[in-house]
C-alpha cells in the first residue's frame, strides 16, 4: 500500500495534479469576481422594484438557482454551439459557474440590502440625497460588509463545484487525478487521498476565514 503511494506521487504526477489545483482556483476566482459584479447588479435590480424589469430578473434568478449546475455546464458547452457560439472548455466552465453563481450572489446581495435598517435610507433621503445616491453611498457599503462571510461560503461551494467541470473534460484537479490513475490502477487510492486532501485543505482554510469574519462582525 505504502509502496503504491510512493510510486504514485512522482514529482511529475504531483506537478500535474497541482497544475489542476491551479486551474480549479483560477476558474473559481475568475467566476466569483464576475459573479460578484453581475450578481450585485441583478440583486440590486431585484431589490429596487423597477416595474417589469425587477420581476423578470427575479424570475430568471429563481430559475437558475433551482437548476443543477451540471445542466448549466452542459448548456454552455454542448448547447451554445447550436446557437453559433463555440466556447472552449475553460470559457464554457467559467461561463457556467458565473451564470449559476451570479444567481446565488444576487439573492445574497438582495437579502443583504434588505437587512440594512430602513432608517439608513430614510436618513440619507432626509439629508437631501437622491434614492440612488443613498443606495450607492449609504446602504450598499454597509450591506457589502455584512455579506462578506456569505461571499466566502459561496466561494467554497464554487471551489468544490469546479470538480463538476470534469464532465466537459476541463483539466482541473479531479480530471487530472483520473488521468493519472487511468495509467495504473494501483494509483487509484493514492490519487483519491491526494485530491480529497487538497480540496479539504483549501476549503477548510476558507471556512476558517469565513468563521473568523463572522465572529469579527458579530463583535462589531
Amino acid at each position, binding site marked *: 500500500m505504502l509502496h503504491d503511494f510512493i510510486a504514485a506521487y512522482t514529482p511529475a504526477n504531483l506537478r500535474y495534479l497541482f497544475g489542476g489545483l491551479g486551474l480549479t482556483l483560477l476558474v473559481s476566482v475568475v467566476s466569483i469576481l464576475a459573479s460578484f459584479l453581475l450578481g450585485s447588479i441583478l440583486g440590486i435590480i431585484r431589490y429596487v422594484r423597477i416595474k417589469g424589469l425587477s420581476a423578470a430578473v427575479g424570475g430568471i434568478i429563481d430559475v437558475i*438557482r*433551482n437548476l443543477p449546475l*451540471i*445542466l448549466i455546464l452542459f448548456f454552455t458547452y454542448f448547447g451554445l454551439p*447550436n446557437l453559433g457560439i463555440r466556447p472552449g472548455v475553460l470559457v464554457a466552465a467559467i461561463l457556467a459557474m458565473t451564470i449559476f453563481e451570479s444567481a446565488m450572489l444576487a439573492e445574497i446581495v438582495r437579502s443583504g440590502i434588505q437587512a440594512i435598517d430602513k432608517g439608513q435610507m430614510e436618513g440619507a433621503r432626509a439629508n437631501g440625497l437622491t434614492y440612488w445616491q443613498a443606495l450607492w453611498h449609504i446602504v450598499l457599503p454597509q450591506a457589502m460588509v455584512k455579506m462578506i462571510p456569505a461571499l466566502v461560503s459561496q466561494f467554497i461551494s464554487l471551489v468544490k463545484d469546479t470538480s*463538476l467541470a470534469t464532465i466537459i473534460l476541463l483539466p482541473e484537479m*479531479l480530471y487530472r487525478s483520473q488521468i493519472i490513475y487511468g495509467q495504473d490502477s494501483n494509483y*487509484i487510492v493514492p490519487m483519491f487521498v491526494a*485530491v480529497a486532501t487538497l480540496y479539504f485543505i483549501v476549503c477548510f482554510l476558507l471556512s476558517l476565514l469565513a468563521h473568523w469574519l463572522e465572529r469579527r462582525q458579530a463583535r462589531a
Partner: protein
Amino acid sequence: MINLIHTYGSLLLVGLRHTLTCSLIALAASLLLGTVVALLEVAPERWLRGVARTYIEIFRNIPLLVITLFFYVVVPLYVIKLTGFVAGTIGLSLYTSAFIAETIRSGIRAVDPGQMEGARANGLSYWQAMRVIVLPQAFRYVIPPLGNQFVNLVKNSSTLAFVGGFDLMYQGNNIASDSMATMATYAVVGLLYLAITLPISSYMRYLEKRLA
C-alpha cells in the same frame, strides 16, 4: 420539443423516477444522520463534539463528486461493488448530512436554554430532555433552511450522471447526443428539475415570510 417528448418520454420518466427515488432516500438518510451528528455536536461530552465536528468538516469540505466517485471507484476495490445509483445515493446522503447537521445544530442552539434546564429540573435525563423537549422545538425553526437543503439535494442528485446512475441528467445527456436536439433536450430536462425544485423553494420562501 413535442417530438422529443414523444420519442424519449419513457426514458425521461425513467430518469425522473431515479432522480426522485435517489432524492427521497438521500433525504431520509441525511436527515437521520444529520440529526444524530447535530446531537453529538451539542453533547456535553467533549470527545463526542470532536467526532461530530470532524465528520462535518470532512464532508463539507470535499466535493460531492469526489465522495461519490470514492464509493463508485475505491470502495469496489476493497469492499463491495456498488452500482452507480447506490454509490451516488450514499455519496449524496453523506455530503448532505453534514449541511443538515449544521442547520439542525443552529436550530437546537436557537431553543431557549431554559427549556433544557426546566426539563432537567423536572427529572428528565439530558437525552430525554433533548429528544422530548428541545429537538421538537428546534425542528420548527429549521424547516425553511432544511427545505433549501432539500432543493440543493435534488439538484446535486445530478452527480449520478457521472457514475451511470440513470437519473434525469444521465438520460438527458444520452438523449441530447442521440437526438442531436441538444437545446430542446436541456430545456425539457431543466423544466423537469424545476417542476421538483421550484415548488419546494417557493413554499419555503412563503414559510420563511410567515415565520418572520
